[in-house]
Each structure stands twice: as C-alpha cells, then as structure tokens.
C-alpha cells in the first residue's frame, strides 16, 4: 500500500512539473485558456485512437490524440482568421463541439471499458499506479510514470534549446517576427508539445487536473517572480507542493487525487495572490491607501502654502468632510500645521514638506 502511495506521489509530481512548464509560456503569452480548450479537445482523439489501435498503451494513440489537440488549435486559428466570430467565442465553440463528439462516441462504444465518461473529468491516478511496466522481468514501476517522465524530459529539452527564442516570442511577438525567429512555427511546435502533455496527463489525471496545473501554479509564480528563470522555478515548486498536498488529502478523504490536487493548486494560488510581498492583493491595497494619504497630505499642504495668509480656506479643496478631517488630523499629529483660534496655520516644517519634491513613495 505504501509503495502504491509513493508511486501515486511520483506520478503526480512529474505530471505537475510537466504541466507547470507548459503553463509558464501559456500564461506569459496571455493564452492560458488554450489549456482549457486542449483539456477538452483531446478527448475525441483519445477515444477514436483507442477504437483504432485497440490498445490504450500504444504510443501511436498518444501521438494521434496530440495531433487532435493541435487540430483544435488550427481550427480555432482558422475560425479566428475569418473574423466572422469573436476570438473567445471561436475557442469556446471549437472545443465544446469536439468534446461533445468525444463524449458521445465514448458513451456509445466504450461504456463498459476503460473510458467511463466520468473518468474524463478527473481520471484515476491511483489506478494508473497499479499498471506497472515490466521489462525483462524487472518491475520498473507504473508505466504512466515513465511516460510522464519522458514528456517532462522532452519539454525541458525544448525549453533549454529554445529558451531565448521562446522568451522573445512570449513578450514581443512583432519583434520576434522582425528578427526572423519564425514565431508562428515555434509556437505551433510548442502547442503540439503542450497537447502531447495534455494527452499523457489526461489518461491519469483527467481534464480538470490538467487545466488546474497548467494555470494555477504559473499564475501564482507570475505574481512572485521577475525573471523568466524565477518564473519556472516558482511555478515548478508550487506545482510540486500542491501535487504532494493533494495526494495526501485525496488519500485521507479516500477519493481520486485529481480533484484534491486541483483544489490545493487553487488554494496555493489564492494564498500567493493574497499575501505575495509586492504583487499580492493585501500589499497592493495597503500600498494604494498609503499613497492616497500621502497624496492628500501633499495637496493639502500645497493649498495651505498657496493661500497667502497660511490659513485653511474650505472652498479650496473639493473633498468630503471625512477625507478633510483625516488629512488635518494627520498633519496636526506630524506638526505640519497648528491650530490657532479655530483656524489652521501652516508651520515652517509644513512649508518645507509642501515644497519638497520627495516622491519616493510613488515609485
């Protein structure tokens, strides 16, 4: 039992790494939802491939299904190029039609075999861990693990080989075109690899896990990193942590780990989105309110300085009573103005502050 658990962890970790590498460029290139489309569209490929090759371990099935995924992308591009349909809508129409076809074929022909329609959503990693690969009498562990490891190796090889080109292309496609990098060709090859990853992960993990692992860890990493290398490292780290946490959660709840892994990836994304040091929601909100206060103080002091008597004239500032009170109280506390006979008078310190050009906070 424990060895089964370890293999389940290993499969999940390798799948998570592969998906998160795919996701990095999808998120950077603003086409994260293509992974959602691929997650649905490879289904007919897998089903038809299974009907043709009659062996679900056949590598031809994987390649056939990967080409179906690529076909989805091509259909989508064609439909988009006619300019008759909105971009988002064309993606939605193509993948939902292909997915429907897949569901119907599978429920007509394969009801009692491996592809139960419910398995499409979250697959079954634990069952995949039982299907071992035996070569020359040696038990090498689950077949899926080796398949995913191969896919991961291919992905890493491709990224290392074309690291520079991919980066240029992700951030400035026109420039990439200008220096003859053939962004379209590279992009198509890359989407083919993403499609292959989706297919391989689909059998064990189902469409939901593929989509979750391709979007959530890279999205979290996007908030934490500055460079491309950071991006990969954070994304992989978050994916691995959520995969492990998800497997244990699934084990304790006694359910298939795909749902819990997606859930953990989501939770880790949410916590990063909330608490990330610079890009997180909380720090952004705090920073924004601090900037607001500082700006109000500056405006207030400037208004006082411009007003020759150095007294506050209510009509100068079109603020609400509350905002005004807030600013006045803050300035009084910092001794930038003083109160005299119910009027506010600016001090020397306040004058200095008003004329200073210290805008450090606004950076």
């Amino acid at each position: 039992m424990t060895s089964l658990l370890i293999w389940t962890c290993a499969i999940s970790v390798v799948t998570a790494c592969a998906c998160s590498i795919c996701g990095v460029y999808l998120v950077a290139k603003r086409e994260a939802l293509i992974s959602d489309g691929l997650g649905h569209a490879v289904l007919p490929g897998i089903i038809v491939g299974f009907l043709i090759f009659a062996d679900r371990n056949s590598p031809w099935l994987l390649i056939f299904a990967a080409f179906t995924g690529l076909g989805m992308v091509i259909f989508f591009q064609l439909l988009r190029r006619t300019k008759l349909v909105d971009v988002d809508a064309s993606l939605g129409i193509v993948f939902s039609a292909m997915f429907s076809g897949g569901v119907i074929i599978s429920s007509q022909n394969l009801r009692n075999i491996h592809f139960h329609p419910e398995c499409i959503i979250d697959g079954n990693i634990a069952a995949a861990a039982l299907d071992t690969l035996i070569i020359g009498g040696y038990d090498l562990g689950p077949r899926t693990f080796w398949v995913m490891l191969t896919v991961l190796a291919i992905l890493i090889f491709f990224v290392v080989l074309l690291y520079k080109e991919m980066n240029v292309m992700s951030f400035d496609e026109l420039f990439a075109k200008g220096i003859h990098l053939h962004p379209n060709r590279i992009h198509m090859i890359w989407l083919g690899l993403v499609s292959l990853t989706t297919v391989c992960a689909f059998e064990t993990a189902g469409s939901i896990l593929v989509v979750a692992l391709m979007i959530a860890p890279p999205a979290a990493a996007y908030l934490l990193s500055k460079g491309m290398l950071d991006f990969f490292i954070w994304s992989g780290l978050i994916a691995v942590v959520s995969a492990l946490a998800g497997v244990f959660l699934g084990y304790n709840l006694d359910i298939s780990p795909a749902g819990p892994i997606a859930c953990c990836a989501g939770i880790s994304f949410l916590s990063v989105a909330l608490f990330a040091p610079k890009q997180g929601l909380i720090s952004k909100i705090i920073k924004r309110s601090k900037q607001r206060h500082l700006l109000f103080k500056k405006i207030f002091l400037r208004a006082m300085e411009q007003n020759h008597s150095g007294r506050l004239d209510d009509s100068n500032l079109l603020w609400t009573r509350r905002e005004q009170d807030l600013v006045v109280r803050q300035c009084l506390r910092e001794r930038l103005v003083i109160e005299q006979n119910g009027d506010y008078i600016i001090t020397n310190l306040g004058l200095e502050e008003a004329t200073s050009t210290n805008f450090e906070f606004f950076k």
Partner: protein
Amino acid sequence: MLATPTAREINLLTDLFEDYTFRVVLFGTSIIGACSGGVGCFAYLRKQSLIGDVISHSSLLGIMVLFLLSYLLTGTGSKSLWILMPGALLAGTSALLLTRLLFNHTKLKSDTSLGVMLAIFFGSGVMLLRWVQRASDPVIPGRRGLNDYLFGMAAAMTTDDLWMIGSLAIAATLTLMLCWKEFKIYVFDSTFTHSIGYRTTLIDNLLLITLVIAIVIGIQAVGVVLMIALLITPASTARQWTKSLGSMVILSAMIGVFSCAVGCTISANYANMPTGPVIVLVATAIFLFSLLFAPQRGIIARALARRKYSLSIDRHQPSEEVI
C-alpha cells in the same frame, strides 16, 4: 430522395410526444435554450464569451455545497432545484467577482484570472462530488444522479424543476426587456455610456446576474462542462445572419430552442446518449451551416463577392494603349 418514415417510426414519435415526462423535459430544455440563446448574445457582444465557461464550471461547487448542507440538516441529500439553484447562483457570482478582483488589483491578465478561478471552483466541486460518491462511509442518501450535473441529464427533470427553471427564465427575460436600452448602449460602447451619465457598474452587474441566471438554469439539462456552448454557439450563429441587436437576440433564442428540442428528442430515442453533447452538436451543425451559407457575411457569399469584384476590375482595366 428523402426516406419516407415507416408507420412504426411515426408511431414512436407520436408516442413520445404524448408522454407526459417527455413533454416536461422538452418544454424545460426549450426554455433553457431560449434563455441562454438570448442572454448569450450580450456575452458574445461584450467579448466575454469565456466568462460563461467559468460561471458554469463554478456552479458545480455551489451545487455540491448546498447538497451537503441539505444532507447535514435533514439527513438526506436533496436534489431539488429549489435548494441547489441558489448555491449555483451564489458560486457563479462569487467566481465572477473574484475574477474581477484579481483582474483589477493584480497584474494577472484576464485569461489567467478566468482560468485560475475555473480551476479552483471546478476542482473543489469535483473533489466534493467524489467525496460524496466514494465507496466508504458515510453513505449519503440521495447521492445517485449527481454525476448528471457534469454532462446533463434532461430526462431527470421534474415538473417542480420546470417551475423553478421557468420562473428564473422569466426573471432573466424581464430584466433583459426592462433594461434593453441600457444593455444595448453598454454592450456597444461602455465608455460612452459612462460619459453620458449612466451608472455603468450597475448595468454591468445586472448584465452579469442575468448571465449567471441563464447559465445556472441550464446546468441540469446540459451539464456544467458544455453549458458554454449553449450560450455562445447560438449567438455566434445569429450574428452571421443579422446586423441588428433585436433580431440577433430573437434569432439566437430560436436557434437555442431548436437545438435543445432536437437534441432532447434524439437523446430520448437512443440509449446511452447524454443530452448535453447532442444539443451542442446540433447547435454546432447549425453554426457551421450559417458560417458557410449566410447571405452577406457567409464564407461562400464573401468568396463569390470577391470573385465578382475581381472580374469587374479585370473588365475595367485600362488597356495598355491608354497608359
């Protein structure tokens, strides 16, 4: 030559239409088709088609949470739409609000924020679904048939559900009719709408709530995974045939009704035929037909026009002597 239906086939069809359950299901799915077709136009024109995907996937979490709540309170999990629907509405709306929060306050782009919310809500929903269905204790009464929310099972619709679906659809239609002018101007130019003094946030929220309602009522029949197609495919189809918003909405609603009715009939006639995918394929077939054959925008019409134009240019080309 058309194949004439045999007497037995005619009999089958009339039997089907006399069947009370089937009439309920047919009527229910037609309402759903009309509602999502009509409201889908606005999502399509706002260029927010994929928001529908996020809303529909997210509602699974709401459904599961309310199912578990009803189990905790009464001892039996309820599958009545009156109980599950508010959960779905709430989950869909909160997914939308969170997406907007992420998009407005972090540097994430819209597609990533949408995708991440889809993953979180749908992942948690599937997790709860699998927990409810697991083999070990506690066995939750009433858990059979929950899977149908994934791909839709229109046959499970009851008269009670029909009332729920009908009233929500009427609410959505009324909102659409009352705010027609505002929605129209907002969909085409939101900045202009804001500048002439309309409260755009209010309009946006109303539009999104209508969208959530239209999506949520369809989940039982079509399923969370494919609801997006029912929302955008009729709208994209209708867009090919017309230029005015009013006729687009009506045409799209009609296409929605037609694909739902046909899909529903096919699915009732064959064993192991999930309703949702059949409806989607019917709608996609109509879409492809329109894409090719629509009178002005259609691919064939445009190719013909281009050919005619190039011929006329050839004809009017000045001869070399003039040059």
